[in-house]
């Protein structure tokens, strides 16, 4: 019979082996000034992504980049995608600025309601002194009808760049996407991500502790989760350094989903530990846990396998828009299965045995006690 608990040092060592390089790359992020470590999408950094196609199919990535540099966009990055679209990333924003407001005039809440109110018949009416002619430029023009191709910008900074590109490289025939995100939204997102991951982890800690009436199980499940978060972040830090794989706004969603899902396997094992503790009262805790692990091993792997199956299908056939999101989920769920079996349960044994030694007795099913941690 395979002794997982007996070999726990090896599994801990393996976990360290895969988390430490990742951690190093994560920590490189703030120190390398963005040269290494996690690469953030414009969701976090602010900026513009722009996906366009030129009528002239022979335009190359270098030409586009050179032209952008000539237009003053030295930090622009350009990538050619499958269907002849250039994905351009700029630090410049394509956002409308606030117009300078005229001074004075109190702003009570005005109510531009739409109720018809006929003018009193007796009131004198000023007549227009001139023939109304020129179009009021600031007013709404109810003319545009949605067409097949989105407008290539002509206004603002991006409009200037678009005009410059078209002058040099010929007309832009199609625009697939134009996204611009300002610094306000970005900082919101970073705060949000941190809060979400913290609250999510605490939620799981609370729930497991409550359901199993054992803070040790809650904490070890949490440690396994943190392991998974570090693994996913670490892999993305390495991929970001080597292949410029970016973390986007959905990444935090993937992290939370991983947190919620990877605890499933831990729960299955702990549930069996709880059951076996009663059945095999008096046997060493390590053996009970090992036995429970082996009993549930098959289903832990199988449940994760079905999810891995669906995610792999999404990764291979789902297209590029959700690639990073699905990859994060996939890594997290595989890591979650590993950490449930090889980290959470062995840690539980270590803690229980340490506690038993401290209380000066051998293990037993009654040794459920609040730990000070």
């Amino acid at each position: 019979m395979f002794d997982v608990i007996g070999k726990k040092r090896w599994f801990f060592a393996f976990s360290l082996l895969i988390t430490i390089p990742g951690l190093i790359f994560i920590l490189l992020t703030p120190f390398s000034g963005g040269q290494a470590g996690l690469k953030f999408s414009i969701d976090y950094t602010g900026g513009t992504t722009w996906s366009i196609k030129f009528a002239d199919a022979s335009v190359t990535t270098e030409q586009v980049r050179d032209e952008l540099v000539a237009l003053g966009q030295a930090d622009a990055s350009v990538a050619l995608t499958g269907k002849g679209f250039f994905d351009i990333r700029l630090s410049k924003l394509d956002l409308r600025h606030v117009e300078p407001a005229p001074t004075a005039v109190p702003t009570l809440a005005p109510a531009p309601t739409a109720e018809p109110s006929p003018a009193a018949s007796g009131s004198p009416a000023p007549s227009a002194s001139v023939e109304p002619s020129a179009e009021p430029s600031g007013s709404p023009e109810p003319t545009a009808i949605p067409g097949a191709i989105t407008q290539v910008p002509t206004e603002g900074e991006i409009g200037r760049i678009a005009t410059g590109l078209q002058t040099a490289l010929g007309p832009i025939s199609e625009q697939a996407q134009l996204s611009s995100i300002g610094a306000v939204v970005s900082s919101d997102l970073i705060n949000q991500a941190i809060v979400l991951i913290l609250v999510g982890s605490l939620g799981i800690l609370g729930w497991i502790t409550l359901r199993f009436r054992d803070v040790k199980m809650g904490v070890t499940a949490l440690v396994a989760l943190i392991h998974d978060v570090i693994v996913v972040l670490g892999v993305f830090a390495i991929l970001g350094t080597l292949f410029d794989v970016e973390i986007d706004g959905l990444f935090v969603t993937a992290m939370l989903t991983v947190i919620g899902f990877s605890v499933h396997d831990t729960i299955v094992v702990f549930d069996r530990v709880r059951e076996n503790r009663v059945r095999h009262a008096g046997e060493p805790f390590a053996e009970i846990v090992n036995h429970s692990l082996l009993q549930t091993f098959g289903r832990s792997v199988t449940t994760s396998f079905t999810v891995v199956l669906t995610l792999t299908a999404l990764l291979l056939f789902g297209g590029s828009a959700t690639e990073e999101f699905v990859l994060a989920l996939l890594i997290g769920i595989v890591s979650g299965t590993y950490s449930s079996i090889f980290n959470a349960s062995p840690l539980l044994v270590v803690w229980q045995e340490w506690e038993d030694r401290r209380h000066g007795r051998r293990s037993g099913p009654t040794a459920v006690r609040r730990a000070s941690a």
Partner: protein
Amino acid sequence: MRRFLPLVIIAVGLAAIAIDFAPLDRPFSDPAVKIDTRLGLDLQGGLRGEYRALPANGVGVSTDGLANIRTIIENRINQYGVAEPIVQTQGSDRIVVEIPGVTNEQDVRSLIGSTGRLDFVPIPTSLSVNQGQPMDLITATTCPAGGVVTTICILFSGDQLDSATIGQDERGNTAVNFVLKDAGQRLFSEWTAGHVNEQFAIVLDSTIISAPVIQGPITGGNVQITSGSIGGFPQAEAKQLVDVLRFGALPFPVEELSSDTIAPTLGREFLDRSILAGGIAVGLVLIFMLLHYRLPGAVAGLALMYYALVLFAVFRLIPVTLTLAGIAGFVLSVGMAVDANILIFERSKEELRLGKSLPQAIEAGFSRAWNSILDSNVSSLITASILYFFGSSVIQGFALVLILGVLVSMFTAITVTRTLLRLIVAREWARKARLYGISESEFTYRPTGRVRREVAPRV
């Protein structure tokens, strides 16, 4: 209760199929709206923008003010006649605009974002102005009391406008009527009394949109602008002027925080790819379950298809807007939905090997696995709820799909599977070891002496 379960399951299934495929009207909707699948902007293309209202003249953005901005922006967009624009307030100062299918987003964005500052400006007699002429009001101040002006000043602003409509003058010509609120009414009354035959300008964003001559004192706050053209204003021009008067001015300037335009063709491509990937994913899971668990696997497969039908119906009914991430969540939930079945079947196998009869083993499988299933699903619900309550709208879409998926799967993977299995194992043909993927000896093993004692080897 157990007797009625098959009926409940059939009823729910039929209702789900009807909602999924029949052109039904949405309940409690007036006017009648068809139940449809809502697709997010990333799947159908369109424009999404996030705006922040800024304090004006030292006055912070109020809840009413924000609601006002929302209404004005909505009205501005509605002029374009685009399908189902969504304009929502978010937090204390944010407005999120989503316009599906729009491609002239540059025009729409300048329209949304324009502060639309509307001012009423008396023109000094030394000047003469025309409609369409620019007028810089950045340095202009409020007009001094007393009624004599030599420079450009602002008498009052758009906030004093109560309403504006297209009307007719006494000769039946098209004119534009508008009504002023109390303060504006008083100011205008005082001004017009002393300045008959002088020009007066209505200025939107530093452009004169109308410059009528005052015909006489206007005391009641009801103002009419007529045109010297034959028949009065052309209808389109009158409407434009009314629109400007009504929707021209935002009470607070808005700043564009983010903007995202996706071409409809790209959205369509995303949608097609997601559906393809989802179909492949579901197919793979079905095949795996069938190969690995045989008869129960087939039952789980049926339950899974039932799950997909019901969940899709729930999405259409609520309605849940499906985004790219939402579809990924849907596919992911398919993988998770069979997890409960896997736990149950594994436990049932275990119980079979311990010597229980088939029906006993299946019942034990369900009851013993229940704790793990509940705890697992609740932990998923915890994280998904956190995403839902604290996340941005894109994240919320994914979280809602996951939450509904977990809830629906609790019903389908447990109740539906159990009911089907109970019906099936009652049949003679279903009692064969190979249908369950275990050996004949395990299938027929019955313990002799010690009952309910595990036979698994000890370490």
